[in-house]
């Protein structure tokens, strides 16, 4: 494969930028949460690319841990969102402004 490290990091950076766009553009908490997952995923891709091109195993192990932590984080975050919806009947961030009033 003649594709270099820079191409993979470019894709990972663009993926991160798209996730960031989702976080600041969207109002739905669930979609914001999915965009956060996308940013984590972009970091995973960059770590695997660095690990492959530096010929070490450490990046792959980091990705392993990131996937585990992301799964735990999704479970807790979605439980919080469900609890929020149960109390406020909405998950839109522009309706959840009780602290600023």
């Amino acid at each position: 494969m003649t594709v270099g490290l820079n191409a993979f990091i470019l894709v990972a950076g663009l993926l991160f930028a798209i996730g960031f766009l989702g976080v600041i553009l969207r109002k739905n908490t669930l979609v914001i949460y999915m965009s956060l997952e996308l940013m984590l995923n972009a970091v995973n891709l960059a770590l695997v690319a660095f690990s492959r091109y530096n010929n070490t195993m450490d990046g792959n192990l980091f990705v392993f841990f990131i996937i585990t932590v992301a799964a735990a984080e999704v479970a807790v975050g979605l439980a919080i969102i469900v609890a929020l919806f149960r109390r406020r009947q909405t998950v839109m961030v522009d309706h959840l402004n009780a602290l600023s009033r």
Partner: protein
Amino acid sequence: MLDILFYVFSAVTLIAALLMVLSPNAVNGAMCMIVSFVGTAAMFVLLEAYFLAILQVLVYAGAVMVLFLFIIMLLDVDKGECGFLKDKLTLASSFVGFALIAVLVCSAFAGANHLPEPGLMPVLENPTGSGAGIPFTTSSKSFGYSLFTKYMLPFQVTGFLLLAAMIGVIVVSKKTEEGK
């Protein structure tokens, strides 16, 4: 051949991610997200991290996105958000921020003065055993070696984190008397 595959998979991943961010329907967004995760798994295969590719499909595209879809359909939250493309100020400022990051990334990793480019080294099929630095291998055996030698403490901490997350979810989602 592999180069063409890289371009195809990166295009699929980026377009699916963009569709996820821009689609007004959250269920369609979750579907695009699955496509994006599978594209990333394909790029892991191109980088010869086969174990992580399988893990990505199983955990992210499988478990995590099923959980997301379950919550999206359970809460039925699509009603309120048709108008996120109508707020011109938010739209313009978000896209300006996106363009800034994109230009930064493109100028750092593409074009004339990009980062130094190391060549691909040949991959060992089998790990030789424990050592200070374990070289990149395609077999999942080297994950075991690393997890139980160099990364023993993070491994234990991750296990404890999973336990804490499980108990936390049970506590958070329990119905309280004064809540309802």
